[in-house]
Structures are given as structure tokens and as C-alpha cells.
């Protein structure tokens, strides 16, 4: 009958542990992304979003 060596069992435990940590990391990053979008904190920095700070004022346009 095949029996796993104790070292292999430890490695298996470690590998599943790393898998769990990576999955948890994905869930956390996804959750933070959703929360950030809900609170709107990061939105202005990206493309395709109106950035009022970069729109020239009417007075500046008149001077040019």
C-alpha cells in the first residue's frame, strides 16, 4: 500500500497554505477595489473620467 512520506505531507500542507493565501489575496484586492469605487477616492486619477482640475477656466481662455 502506498503511503506518503511525512515530508511530502508537510509539503502538501504548505502548498495548500500558499494556495489559500493567494486566494485570500485575490478576494481582498477585489474587495478593496469595490470599496474604492464605492467611495470614489481613486476615480479622478484615471482616464475616461472628467477631471475638473484640468479644465482651463474661462478667464484663462479669454487671455490667450
Amino acid at each position: 500500500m502506498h503511503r506518503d512520506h511525512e515530508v511530502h505531507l508537510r509539503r502538501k500542507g504548505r502548498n495548500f497554505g500558499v494556495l489559500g493565501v493567494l486566494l485570500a489575496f485575490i478576494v481582498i484586492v477585489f474587495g478593496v477595489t469595490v470599496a474604492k469605487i464605492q467611495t470614489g477616492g481613486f476615480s479622478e486619477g484615471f482616464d475616461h473620467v472628467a477631471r475638473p482640475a484640468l479644465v482651463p477656466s474661462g478667464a484663462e481662455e479669454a487671455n490667450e
Partner: protein
Amino acid sequence: MTDASLHIARPEGATDEASLRDYWQLLKPRLMSLSIFTALVGLLVAPGPQHPILAATSILWIAIGAGASGALNMWFDADIDRVMKRTRKRPIPSGRVAPGDALALGLFLAGLSVVMLGLTANWVAAFWLAFTIFFYAVIYSMWLKRTTSWNTVVGGLAGAFPPMIGWAAATGSTPLEAWLLVAIIFMWTPPHFWALALFVKLDYHDARIPMLTVTHGRAETRKQALIYAVGLAIVSIYAATTALGGPLTLAVVMVLNGVFVKGAYDMWRRTDADSDNHAVEKGLFKWSLLYLFAHFSVFVIEAALPFGGW
């Protein structure tokens, strides 16, 4: 995988295959739990609304940062840990984890926690987390721990930062109230640790670590513990009169500090000749644990009460 992999030469110092539990032990989970508790209090008592997911993940990154400090500390202190009975079975001295692996884990988690806290909360909090890791791993572990008897005081400062990081994660700033939380833990650590050092036979002497009980004697340690206990009472009562506290907090901290200073005074008045098996020192140590938990909890309760605060 074949059994041939069992016969591959292991890194120097590693005699047994590490399990996940060994890597977990490298992060000093007890120290991490204290950081989680105090950082959570800092985050909860800070003004302003917080998104629950961002708050929870911020605490997670602070905890991982604390774990990274623990791993770096264990990597550097492996030679000391090998000498002392209390630490001989830790993952590195026992040979289950190679020193290089512990260093890599510590550096990786330090970088990960700082960057992720910056992205999740803000870069003020990330800066203070990075500073805390650097302070604990380099200033304390690599330098002052082995050179000065004030290592307990200095090490206490590293353990005092988490509530301020929690506050910074919530608000992006570090006002006086956040620093008062730091000051409370900073003043609390020496009498807490010295009470323990007076009743437990710690073998720091064998490891050539200059602890105050060894370099300046036990009588001086008792005196210093009383001085810090009085200082703690002043800081604590002052904190209760600021925006952190309120009538409830003031009442609770008066009792907590009264008992703490009385215990430190009794510990100062006695000598090792008193044959009660160090009952006073043990009593002060136990009270110090309750003290910190109750003190920080009452800040949160005061902040949550609709009629709380001044």
C-alpha cells in the same frame, strides 16, 4: 515529485522540513495580536466615517507589517535564540526554517504590507508602518537590543506605534491624540516587562543581552518601574481629558492607574528576600495586561456612546 527530492541537500542550518505552522511562528502571532488590537482601537476612535472593508484590510496590512518585523527579528536574533531556553525551539534555532528563508519572508511581507496599506488607506499610514518595521528590525533588534540596558524602553516604542498607524489609516493625519495612544503603550511597556523580568528567571545574561535587571540590578529595576508607572498615570489621565476621552474614560483610568501605581510602589518597597514567591511582581504583571486591554477598550466605548466624550 519523487522520493529523490528527500535526499536533496538542505540549506545550512536547516535540519527538518518546515511546515506552514513554522512560518506562522516566524511572524510572532502574540505580538501581532497586540498590534491588531491597538491598531484597531486607533482606527475606531479616530474621527470620521470609514468604509468597513477598507478599515478591516488596513488592520490586516498593519498586522502583516508587525509579522514582518517579527520575522526579521527572528532572523537576526537566531544566535541569541539558540542560547536561551525560552527561544531555543523557535523555527530558525531548531533548524526547521533556514535563516535566508526567514529573511526573505520578512522582507517580502514588509514590502507587501507597506505598499498595500498605502494603496488601501493612505501613504501617511504606509510611511509610519515602514518606519515602525525599520525601527523594530534595525534600530531595536540589530543595534540597541545588544548594546544598551534601555533596550526594553526603546523596543516598547516600536510596539507603541500601531494605534497611531491605525489612526493615520482612518484619517491620513497623526494629531496629538494619536501620539497620546503611542505614549500610553510606550510608558506601559517597561513596568509591564520589568515586573515579568523580576519573577521569571530569564536567561538574557547567558545570551549577553544587557537587560536592566542584570546591568543595574534588581533594586534599580524596581525603581525605574515605579518611575514609568507614575509617568504612565500622568499621560493616561491627560489623554482622558482630551478628545480621546470623556467622563467614563476618566473614571476608569483613575481606577486603572491607581491600582497600577500602587502595585509598582509595593514592588519598589520590597526586596527579593520577601518570601511570598514574588506575589507582588506577579500581581503587577497580571494587572498590566488587564490595564492595557481595559484602557484601550474604554476609549472605544466612549467614542461609541451617544453621550460619550466631553
